[in-house]
């Protein structure tokens, strides 16, 4: 191997989508040559370009370790986290970075998650109690007994980091803005399956022609999920409950009242 080969091996071309509607500049790609090592991620490469080539590139990122879900983008046509995608794993000499599909573009690679989070809020993503524990005037607090099996029913779905990759890959989310998307539907199942949740009306939220029935099980959401959440599984299980094929025989978690302030004072 000569020197020229080794130099070529260490560099890739980063093709970055650029668009700034505020300045009414047309959409285009800019190309940058970026050096890389085997551990370099696409996010590292983008930050290199921002540091040494063009500081005006807009990207959103935070934790750099696939925990915050900020740096989702389409890399070589597939939704991925930039911090979780190594350049060496892509095995291409040109890497194309584009904003996530099905999310309005704010600028360059940054997309607007307002609708995505609205869908998430719509499914009421919190434990609900019929007794109104949170609003109890006596401020009673409880601990819930859950067996490991109870936890396994929903734990997988609680790993969602709301990165939006699943909604970007979903063909239905790409044609219907009112469809909640795999993220929200899987989160609905996460709370539905939780034995601490007593809500009886949760399923009604998505029992709509733009709701769960529009999922056709393309499976792309589960394919691109970087955390192993498997939204397609949650959606199909939820649907089986709604169709009455799976019986809703959830036994609510046993509540144990724990010491109140008054009790603590007396102790």
């Amino acid at each position, binding site marked *: 191997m000569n020197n020229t080969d080794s130099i070529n091996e260490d560099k890739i071309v980063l093709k970055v989508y650029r668009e700034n509607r505020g300045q009414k500049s047309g959409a285009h790609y800019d190309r940058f040559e970026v050096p890389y090592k085997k551990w370099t991620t696409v996010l590292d490469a983008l930050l290199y370009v921002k540091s040494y080539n063009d500081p005006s590139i807009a990207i959103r990122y935070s934790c750099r370790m696939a925990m915050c879900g900020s740096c989702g983008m389409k890399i070589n046509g597939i939704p991925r986290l930039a911090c979780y995608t190594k350049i060496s794993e892509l095995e291409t000499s040109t890497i194309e970075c584009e904003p996530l599909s099905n999310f*309005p573009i704010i600028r360059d690679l940054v997309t607007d998650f307002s609708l995505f989070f609205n869908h998430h809020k719509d499914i009421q993503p919190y434990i609900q109690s019929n007794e109104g524990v949170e609003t109890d005037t006596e401020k009673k607090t409880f601990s819930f007994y859950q067996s490991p099996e109870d936890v*396994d029913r929903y734990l997988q779905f609680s790993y969602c980091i709301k990165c939006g990759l699943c909604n970007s890959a979903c063909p239905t989310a790409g044609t219907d803005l009112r469809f909640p998307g795999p993220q929200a539907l899987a989160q609905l199942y996460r709370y539905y399956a939780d034995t601490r949740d007593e809500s009886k009306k949760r399923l009604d939220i998505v029992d709509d022609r733009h709701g769960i029935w529009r999922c056709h099980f393309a*499976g*792309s959401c589960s*394919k*691109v999920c970087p955390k*192993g959440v*498997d939204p397609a599984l*949650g959606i*199909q299980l939820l649907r089986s409950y709604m169709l009455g094929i799976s019986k809703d025989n959830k036994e609510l978690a046993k509540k144990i009242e724990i010491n109140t302030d008054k009790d603590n004072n007396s102790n």
Partner: protein
Amino acid sequence: MEEIEQPSRNNLEGLKGWLNPSRYGWERISYWFQRLTGVFLLLYFIGHVYETSTIVNGQNAWESFLELTQTVWGHLFLILVIGACTFHSANGIRLIFTHSGIGLGTPGRPDYPYSPSSLNYRQKSGIWIALILSAAAMYYGFNILFGE
């Protein structure tokens, strides 16, 4: 600088999204085939109703319309109908099971490298069975229509 077409405000993939099934594995290809064959069979059904309705205009009108299907292209079209019908039915049965939560595995604690249980070997086998059945039905139809 490489100029490209600016996407719509909502940046939806739209039909372009499902017309390109190559990025997300066999499940997405199966989804694409299911929709494609569904639309194709709907159009065929409308055409078929029109075709059979020509009988009200008498035997001559019926027979002259029927001759259209007795050509090589007519036979090839019918072979496509057979294939589409078989795939749509077989894959549809698989989807009835999955929509009922059957054959998907159970939720569990995911371990890296993540392998979604909903995209398990049962689903892939179901897709392949639908494809093989479809090919076999088309082969059988070919032998009937073009055989001596």
